[in-house]
């Protein structure tokens, strides 16, 4: 269900055909509060409070579970009282940031560029964040958290969409996504897939390897022919799908009962399956994934507390707590000292991370740089997805 999807995975709900890249080119510069330099050079005194906008589960103060609390320690350390709001979709975050009520936002690949383009977030001087140095290099200065060499935030956590399988059904572990696509009929009614238009990108990743003649270079940049090929593949898959999932409780239950035996998953889901007869693999074709960014509002009323939060949430212990609770890899190696499950998330494994196509919102201007053709945007993907489901 997309509601759940929304609450859990920002990137996909992008919805708006944002055209952030196009906007960026058009606008040239973005407005920032701190004058010509953009980011501040040094920090002042703490303002005493900070307002944070984030996905549910990112800012936990113990009110939902007394043992899950990394906000209180921050308040004690800095004297900045945290008020937080969780949002449901990237669109909602985008709208809420316009109110100027929030100092800090946790944004996903798509929303982040949109926020930059609209001038709602300010460049971040990473020199002021002592924990920035420890963050994995492969997450820094990427297309979703920087523009023209200017950093707009710090990475939070990341993860990959993996292939989970039931080890009773698969005596030899699968190595390719073909078990859910071309060979899916062997598991008819027990295949599961992620319930979102962005799942089309997973099919595109598969086609990149198996149908090179289509010329797909980036799974988020599909022209009409390429999209049609992906849709055909997914329509074929639909016949074998028992159910689509989007909230992880649903998939955990389905694998525990045996209602599903193979399909796309997150590492945290496999870790939560208690029956012990599942395993995951990152198939040879590569896969899709996500990476989120903490950003600071250009209208921040408490920029110092905001910087303090960015630094704090990147600190090994806090980052470990937050990413462990959410079920993703942390942003630094040091965080792994505070987590015992880093290995299962392949944290810091650059070779592993390089196989991930991080979620971005498909837009009409092809993300792979092609200019001779118009790509299909998210709204076209949504229509296609509904037709796939039938």
């Amino acid at each position: 269900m997309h509601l759940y999807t929304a609450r859990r995975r920002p990137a996909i709900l992008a919805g708006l055909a944002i055209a952030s890249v196009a906007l960026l080119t058009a606008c040239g510069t973005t407005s920032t509060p701190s004058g010509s330099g953009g980011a501040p050079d040094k920090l002042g005194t703490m303002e005493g409070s900070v307002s944070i906008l984030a996905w549910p589960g990112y800012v936990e103060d113990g009110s939902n579970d007394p043992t899950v609390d990394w906000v209180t320690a921050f308040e004690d350390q800095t004297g900045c009282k945290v008020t937080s709001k969780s949002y449901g979709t990237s669109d909602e975050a985008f709208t809420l940031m316009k109110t100027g009520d929030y100092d800090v936002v946790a944004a996903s690949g798509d929303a982040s560029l949109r926020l930059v383009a609209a001038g709602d977030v300010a460049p971040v001087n990473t020199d002021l964040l002592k924990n920035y140095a420890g963050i994995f290099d492969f997450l820094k200065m990427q297309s979703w958290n920087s523009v023209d060499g200017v950093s707009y935030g710090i990475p939070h956590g990341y993860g990959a969409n993996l292939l989970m399988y039931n080890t009773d059904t698969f005596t030899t572990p699968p190595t390719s996504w073909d078990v859910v696509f071309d060979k899916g009929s062997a598991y008819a009614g027990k295949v599961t897939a992620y319930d979102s238009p962005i799942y089309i990108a997973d099919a595109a990743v598969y086609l990149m390897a198996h149908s090179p003649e289509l010329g797909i270079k980036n799974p988020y940049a599909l022209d009409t022919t390429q999209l049609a090929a992906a849709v055909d593949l997914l329509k074929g898959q639909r016949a074998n799908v028992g159910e689509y999932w989007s909230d992880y409780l649903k998939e955990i239950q389905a694998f525990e009962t045996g209602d599903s035996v193979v399909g796309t998953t997150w590492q945290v889901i496999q870790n939560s399956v208690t029956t012990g007869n599942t395993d995951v693999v990152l198939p040879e074709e590569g896969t899709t994934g996500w990476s989120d960014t903490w950003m600071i509002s250009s209208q921040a009323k408490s920029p110092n507390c905001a910087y303090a939060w960015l630094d704090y949430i990147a600190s090994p212990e806090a980052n470990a707590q937050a990413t462990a609770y959410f079920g993703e890899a942390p942003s630094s190696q040091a965080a792994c000292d505070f987590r015992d499950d880093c290995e299962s998330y392949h944290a810091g494994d650059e070779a592993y991370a390089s196989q991930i196509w991080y979620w971005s919102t498909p837009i009409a201007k092809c993300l792979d740089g092609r200019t001779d053709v118009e790509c299909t945007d998210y709204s076209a993907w949504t229509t296609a997805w509904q037709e796939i489901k039938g």
Partner: protein
Amino acid sequence: MRLSRIARVTLGTVAGVILALVYLPLMVVLVNSFSTSTNLTWPPPGFTLEWWGRAFRNAGALEAIATSTQVAVVATAISLLLGTLVSLALQRHSFFGRDAVSLLVILPIALPGIVTGIALNNAFRTILDVRLGLLTIIVAHATFCIVTVFNNVVARLRRMGTSLEEASADLGAGVWTTFRLVTFPQLRSALLAGGLLAFALSFDEIIVTTFTAGSGVTTLPIWILDNLFRPNQAPIVNVIAVVLVLVSIVPIYFAQRLAGAEQLQK
């Protein structure tokens, strides 16, 4: 019509089986609230009281219950007022467009929640330009709760007839006095029944709420939605559901007693 003994027993058995089926999923909920599995796996792998303990210390849940109660109380109050007014108008007067008005009252509940939800969301944000929050949920809930009050009150007014009210007026009582001393006392149990349903409807509404709640306000159903997808929280949700069912006996019981007492008086 006199039912034979066999017919009575058969009916009783059928009713019993239906009730058993109605309570089967609730039993699953009850059992899962004691289960050691955080994923609601069936059959439960073990027994624990952990969730019950944690549920009562869960600030988020208690806050959500408070928010939902607040919304439901205010929405019910508004719908009691508006529902009574519109019932009096429709049942005590005849006028052009009467059918249209009764359709208008029913429409918010008869149209699918998602339609009501996106219509109100669109109106609040783009036309009225108000921030979504507690107030917008209350307005939305009151809108579709009017009908439950309306149904109960209209049915009661129809059964009451107008003779008592006319007698009151003939004896010189004014419009207010007649309403206060004659009409209202007779409506009381209908208002209670309608209000109770309105409260229940508002308390458990999720679809319209999703679209009118904005991001800062968490009603209980939204909290449940969020927490079914936080790690290790699903059993706590079951505890809350069990508690709600048990607590709900109190108001339903009193409403029933009041209605029963009134029936005896007649």
